[in-house]
C-alpha cells in the first residue's frame, strides 16, 4: 500500500512551526484544521515531548463529520492522531488504538490498524483476526454504493504482517485473501504471508503483481516488497514499469529490512542508478 503520507492539505512544506506551536495547536479545539496539521507534524517530527502522546490520545477520541467543501475527511483529527501515534513508539497509546479499531468509521479503523502494526502491538492480533475471520466473502465483500470493502482489509492484513505473530491461526486467517478478486488485497496478503512464513511462493506472487497491467497495482507490489525487504526481488524491481521514486523506496526497504543476497553493494548501486 502506497498511501502512507497524510501531510497537511495545503502545501507539502507548510510553514515551519516549532514543537511548542504544534502542541498549542493540538491542544486547542476551535480550529480542527490546525489540530489536523499539528497531529501530522508531531508524528512526522517524531516529537518526544511528554505532552505529545497524551494530547494525541485525546485527539484520537475526537469525532467530527466529513466536510467535503473544506476537503476534510470524516474524523480527520482522530485519524491523523492515530497515524502519528503509530510513529511515536509509545506503547501507552495501544489501548486507545484498540478502542479505535472498534469504531464505526472504517477510515479510523484503517488508521488505527496501521498504527498498531507500526507499534508491533501483540494485543491487536486477536481483534484484527476477528475482523478478518469472515474471509473474502465477508470482511472482503464490497460495501453497497461504495468502492470500499466491509473492512479495511488491506490495512488489517498488513498490520498482521508487521506485528509478526507467525501463528498458524493467523496465517490461516490471511491466506484466503491471497485469492481475493482485487489485486491490491492479494498483494497485501502475499506481503503479510511472506513476512510471517518466509515462503518463497508468496514472494513470487508479489513478483507477478509487479507485471500487472495497472500501474496502481505495480506500485502497491513495489511498496509491499520493500516492506518485507525481500532481496531476491532486486532485478524484478529494477525492471518494473513505474516511477523511480517508488523503486527507490522499495530498494531502501530491501536494504533496511532485508538480509542475505544480493548484498549491500548491489542494492546501493541499483539505488544510485535510479536517482
Amino acid at each position: 500500500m502506497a498511501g502512507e503520507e497524510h501531510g497537511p492539505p495545503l502545501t507539502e512544506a507548510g510553514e515551519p512551526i516549532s514543537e511548542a506551536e504544534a502542541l498549542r495547536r493540538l491542544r486547542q479545539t476551535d480550529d480542527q484544521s490546525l489540530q489536523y496539521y499539528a497531529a501530522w507534524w508531531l508524528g512526522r517530527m517524531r516529537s518526544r515531548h511528554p505532552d505529545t502522546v497524551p494530547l494525541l490520545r485525546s485527539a484520537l477520541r475526537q469525532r467530527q463529520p466529513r466536510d467535503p467543501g473544506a476537503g476534510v475527511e470524516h474524523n480527520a483529527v482522530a485519524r491523523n492522531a492515530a497515524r502519528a501515534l503509530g510513529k511515536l513508539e509509545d506503547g501507552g497509546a495501544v489501548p486507545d488504538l484498540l478502542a479505535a479499531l472498534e469504531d464505526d468509521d472504517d477510515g479510523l479503523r484503517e488508521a488505527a490498524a496501521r498504527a498498531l502494526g507500526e507499534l508491533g502491538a501483540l494485543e491487536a492480533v486477536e481483534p484484527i483476526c476477528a475482523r478478518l475471520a469472515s474471509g473474502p466473502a465477508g470482511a472482503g465483500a464490497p460495501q453497497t454504493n461504495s468502492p470500499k470493502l466491509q473492512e479495511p482489509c488491506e490495512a488489517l492484513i498488513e498490520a498482521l504482517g508487521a506485528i509478526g505473530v507467525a501463528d498458524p491461526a493467523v496465517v490461516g486467517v490471511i491466506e484466503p485473501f491471497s485469492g481475493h478478486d482485487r489485486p491490491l488485497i492479494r498483494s497485501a496478503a502475499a506481503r503479510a504471508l511472506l513476512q510471517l512464513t518466509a515462503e518463497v511462493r508468496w514472494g513470487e506472487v508479489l513478483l507477478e503483481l509487479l507485471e500487472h497491467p495497472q500501474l496502481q497495482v505495480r506500485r502497491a507490489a513495489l511498496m509491499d516488497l520493500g516492506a518485507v525487504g525481500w532481496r531476491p526481488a532486486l532485478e524484478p524491481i529494477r525492471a518494473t514499469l513505474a516511477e523511480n521514486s517508488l523503486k527507490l523506496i522499495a530498494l531502501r526497504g530491501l536494504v533496511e529490512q532485508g538480509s542475505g543476497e544480493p548484498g549491500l553493494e548491489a542494492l546501493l548501486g541499483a539505488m544510485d542508478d535510479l536517482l
Partner: protein
Amino acid sequence: MSSLPMTDPFASVSPLIQAVEQADTATALLVATARLASQLAGDDPPAPAAIAALVQVLGFNNPGAAVAAVDGLIACGEAAVAPLLDNLDAHNYGARAWAVRALAGIGDVRGLELLEQALAGDIGPSVRRAAARGLGQLRSDALPAQERREVLERALTALEAAAADGEWVVRYAVVVGLESLALALTPESGGSDGELRQRALQTLTLLSQPDQDTTVVPLRANQALGRLNPAA
C-alpha cells in the same frame, strides 16, 4: 554507426519520430520512444526533430517511455542541452524531474544553474534528488582552471546546503553527488581541489551519522567515505 544518405541526413529517423507522435497507447508510446532513442544513440549528429520528440515525451506521464526518452537524450549529449533548457515546463513536476535527470546525466555545465535551483527550491523530491546526483557529475575538466574551480565550488555549496533536506531520498542523492564530486577532485591537481575535497568529506561524515528516519543514508555515506579514503 549506420551510413546515412547524403540527401537527407535525418531520413532514417523520420518514421520513428512519426511513430512516437502517433502512438495511441501507453505501450505503443514506450516501444516507439525506445526505438527512436536507441536509433539516436548511434546518430551523429542527432536529428533536432528527434530530440524535440523525445523532450516532448517527458511530459506525457508515461514513466516507461520517459525513462527511454531520458536515456536517448543523455546519449545525444550536448546537442540535447538547449532543447531541454528551452522547454522546461514549470507546471509539470514529472516532466521537470525527467528533464533535470536528463541534464544531470549529460553533465553539461550549462545545466548548473538549473540544477542548483532545482536542488534548493523545487517542491518535488524527485526533482531535487535528480539535481543532487547531477551536481556531482558536471563535466568541468575541459574548462579553464578558474572557471572549473567556480563550477565545482558552486556544485559543492549546493550539495552542502541540501545535506539537511527533509527527504531521505534527497539526502541519499546528496551523498552520491558528493562522492562523485570528490572522486573527480584529485589531490595532485592543486591546493584548491584539496580544499573542496575536504569540504565534501566533511559533509559526507555528517551524513554518515545515525539518522532518525533511515539507515540507508548513513550506510551509503559510509560506503562513499570508504571509497574516498581506501586507507582509513
